[in-house]
């Protein structure tokens, strides 16, 4: 395939996605931009901890587009660096809890005996409010350990969210013909899990992973806000909001920048997860597409009716 064909096929692919779900495309681009900015941004901007005390709590200017904080540090630069910390921590926590949760889910969905023990433990962990369990674990691990304590605590908290969904999917898959055939032909059950169950459960795992990532970002923000996350001066979106709290009146932009960053990041992950789920499981969208069809046909029926001025057709169209 030459370059021209490649470009046009890529364009067709994008156009296809845009037609199916424009929102998914837009939010994916926003997410990519967020990741790009938090990787490249800190290299281009002034240091997030560069203090300029005389210029403290300034409003937006050319040098500081989002203004400065109580130590005269550039808020834009801190928000971007915080993105690197928060998104990075979120990625680490999500990857570990997805790996652990998928393993636990697949095993407890496939082996009856393991299920009794593992899932009861997962149920017990799910019985706590996520944030409260995270707080308890971090305090027990010693919050002076900062990022490490937070990663361990949130991994413990979010692993059950993955395990539960993966187990449900595995239970369904285990009943499928191809798994039974594979079992009947004497394939080792570990191999069945690895080459049949996990690949088939992967879409479910990935969708759940995006929601867990979003929830991790919110949990990280809350913990940092309470002073249990990564300690200052390293910026995170949560501890920036906590730092901005006393200056909320004098410089509102200080509190708005990190909060808006959290909202955009979490929305991106949630909506991408929703969109991908819609592509995988079209049933969730069925009614909306049926309604769209009905609306379009009603519209065309109305325009035809107007052309022929038949009151009956118009009534029918209106009834829809």
């Amino acid at each position, binding site marked *: 395939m030459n370059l021209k064909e490649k470009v046009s096929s890529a364009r067709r692919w994008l156009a296809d996605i845009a037609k199916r779900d424009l929102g998914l495309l837009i939010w994916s681009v926003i997410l990519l931009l967020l990741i790009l900015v938090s990787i490249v941004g800190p290299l281009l901007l002034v240091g997030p901890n560069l203090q300029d005390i005389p210029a403290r709590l300034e409003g937006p200017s050319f040098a500081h587009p989002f203004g400065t904080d109580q130590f005269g540090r550039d808020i834009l630069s801190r928000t971007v660096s915080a993105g690197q910390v928060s998104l990075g921590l979120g990625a680490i926590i999500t990857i570990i809890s997805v790996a652990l949760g998928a393993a636990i889910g697949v095993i407890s969905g496939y082996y009856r005996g393991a299920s009794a023990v593992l899932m*009861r*433990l997962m*149920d*017990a*962990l*799910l*019985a*706590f*409010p*996520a*944030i*409260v*369990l995270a*707080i*308890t*674990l971090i*305090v*027990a*691990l*010693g919050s002076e350990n900062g990022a490490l304590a937070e990663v361990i605590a949130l991994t*413990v908290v979010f692993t059950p969210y993955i395990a539960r969904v993966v187990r449900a999917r595995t239970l369904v898959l285990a009943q499928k013909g191809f798994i039974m055939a594979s079992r009947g032909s004497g394939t080792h059950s570990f191999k069945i899990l690895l080459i049949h169950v996990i690949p088939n459960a992967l879409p479910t795992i990935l969708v759940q992973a995006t929601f867990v990532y*979003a929830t991790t970002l*919110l949990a990280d*923000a*809350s913990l940092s*806000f*309470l*002073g*249990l996350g990564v300690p200052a001066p390293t910026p995170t979106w*949560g501890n920036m*909001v906590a730092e901005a*709290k006393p200056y*909320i*009146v004098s410089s*509102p932009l200080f*509190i*708005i920048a*990190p*909060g808006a960053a*959290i*909202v*955009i990041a*979490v*929305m991106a992950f*949630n*909506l991408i997860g*929703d969109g991908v789920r819609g592509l995988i499981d079209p*049933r*969730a969208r*069925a*009614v*909306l597409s*049926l*309604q*769209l069809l009905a*609306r379009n046909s009603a519209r065309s029926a109305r325009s035809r009716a107007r052309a022929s001025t038949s009151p009956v057709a118009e009534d029918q169209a209106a009834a829809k």
Partner: protein
Amino acid sequence: MLGILLRRLRDVVIVLLLVGTALFFVLHLIPGSPARTLLGQFATEQQVEALNEQMGLNEPLITQYFIWLGNVVRGDLGFSFTQNQSVSSVVVSHFGPTLLLAVVSTLLSILVAVPLAVRTVQRPYSPLSRFFVWASSFGLAVPGFWLALVLILVFAVELRWLPVSGYIDPMVDPIGSLRFLVLPMVVILASQVSLLLITLREGIAGEMLQSYIRTARAKGLSEDKVMYRHLLPNALLPAVTVVGSGFGALLGGILIIETIFLIPGMGSVLNAAIQARDYNVILGLTLVSAAIIVVVNLLVDIAYIVLDPKVRVQ
């Protein structure tokens, strides 16, 4: 029906036992000495050893577990050194405001979310429906503590319509307490209504494909009647589950919101305990909140039995 309830009750006891056990072992398997942490870095080895002995930390883990379990079963959650009273009495004296916020916000969110969900399914492409769907993804993404601060900035600091923070017991002054409850309630409802709206919308949309809806329409019922008489009773059942499974997030959110609006509930106690590293209070509150969630899920199961004839027959 009584049999189902008794079985559920048995399950509740088992889950609570597991929750407590999980918490106990998770906390005790973590390396590091609570005595050392409590005494600080300047304590001598002898002092640490003495406190270990006093706290029973030298016993085998399994013995410690049964002593702790016995205490918890009798309602003894330990002693708070910062509040100078038992953890149980700390919890009891701060239970009211949190309970009030949780119950009122749950009821209000159902009242708001159900009509909105019906409307967004009936007219999915109207500008208003699009706005609500968009707003609910925003509501799910916005951190409560941040929304609270922004609302305080706008409505309390700039416009001066509402107080910045504080709390009046509604039992003492029902009218006066309302002013203090508006902002916290709005913050809690933002996420709760969004969650309900999104899940209800999916539930309703799924039910729309069922043939009984077609039958109801075919016999000439108005669209509103189809919705509220035939579809909602079926679509509302999942909503009850959502209220149950989302209760943990709701409670967690309330605890954090309380610290911002200075509401003297369990969240404020938790925050104070975090700052002072009062382990017994943190542990006790964690257990109590898990117990609340388990009880709420029991209530949800009971509601299911009452609402769904299919479950009753089984």
